[in-house]
């Protein structure tokens, strides 16, 4: 119930923020609405039990990328450039095409039976949501079927412990292990002799070098250039 309420609040905030980014013409206000939208998406990540990813989204996107964009606005905005508008015809065309694309996507999503698709992926353990639900049902039945008070207390304690474990963040360790190919959600309890899943160490290294090179390149591109005026070349 709470989960549904939170989902609707943050879904409406993120979609509304994205729409406001499209509609607003002032760049600074666009940046603000982008913060609203990205922050709500981070909250959706928390709702999806991806707490490390939600935190990273808040830190990198909302704290880093948007600040970078705002600096870009500051360095390039000068009077007339802060509002550069398209003609109404172009806006109408863009919105029409966007609406059509949205219709295609929504019809596509609704026409697929997603539980079938999920069951067609090679069985390596059920999805996290299904496991959680099965655990809930099992614990609930243990509480209701308990005969004595003592066993009922024990079952209730077990239920609360599971809920507490689920609410505490636990994706950071899993994510870190998955970089080495150890998958707690998949193959930690598998029979010995089976190879581990390929980890993410190589992509991680590639992306680290990529980020370094990109930042050096960006600093090189954006450096302050000395303007050379034709008459002063002899002095330089």
């Amino acid at each position, binding site marked *: 119930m709470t989960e549904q309420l939170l989902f609707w609040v943050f879904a409406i905030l993120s979609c509304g923020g994205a729409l406001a*980014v499209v509609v607003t013409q002032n760049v600074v206000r666009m940046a603000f609405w982008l913060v609203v939208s990205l922050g709500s998406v981070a909250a959706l990540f928390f709702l999806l039990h991806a707490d*490390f990813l939600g935190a990273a989204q808040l830190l990198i996107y909302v704290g880093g990328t948007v600040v970078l*964009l705002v600096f870009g606005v500051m360095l390039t905005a000068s009077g007339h450039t802060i509002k550069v508008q398209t003609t109404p015809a172009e806006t109408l065309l863009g919105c029409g095409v966007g609406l059509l694309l*949205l219709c295609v996507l929504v019809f596509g999503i609704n026409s697929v039976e997603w539980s079938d698709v999920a069951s067609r992926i090679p069985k390596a353990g059920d999805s996290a949501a299904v496991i959680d639900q099965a655990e809930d049902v099992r614990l609930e039945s243990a509480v209701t079927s308990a005969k004595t008070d003592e066993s009922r207390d024990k079952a209730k304690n077990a239920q609360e412990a599971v809920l507490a474990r689920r609410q505490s963040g636990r994706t950071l360790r899993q994510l870190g292990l998955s970089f080495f190919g150890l998958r707690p959600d998949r193959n930690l309890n598998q029979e010995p002799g089976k190879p581990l899943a390929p980890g993410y160490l190589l992509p991680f290294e590639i992306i680290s070098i990529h*980020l370094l090179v990109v930042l050096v390149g960006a600093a090189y591109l954006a450096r302050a250039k000395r303007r050379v005026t034709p008459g002063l070349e002899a002095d330089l």
Partner: protein
Amino acid sequence: MDGVGLEAYLIVGAVLFVCGIVCMATKRNAIGVLMGVELVLNGANVNFVAFSRFTPLGLDGQATALFVVVLAAAEAAVALAIALNYYNNHLTIDVDRGNELHG
């Protein structure tokens, strides 16, 4: 406890994606175009994380989404540097004015 299904998250992702596309198509300010790109990447990320929770895909979706976040940061840095250079050369940031290579 009936939570929210996969479809709802996919529709949120689709709305973000379409908003980003429309933003990229209709804005003439280069920084507005960049914001559209960020929205598109976020829509894709929502899909990745939703699939990682509701299908047996597991943590693969979250790891991919993490890489997408890092790549988006790198992309924003480079694109912003290019926008600053463009501004230095043209004294405007209107992308429709950058037609010098028009042929």
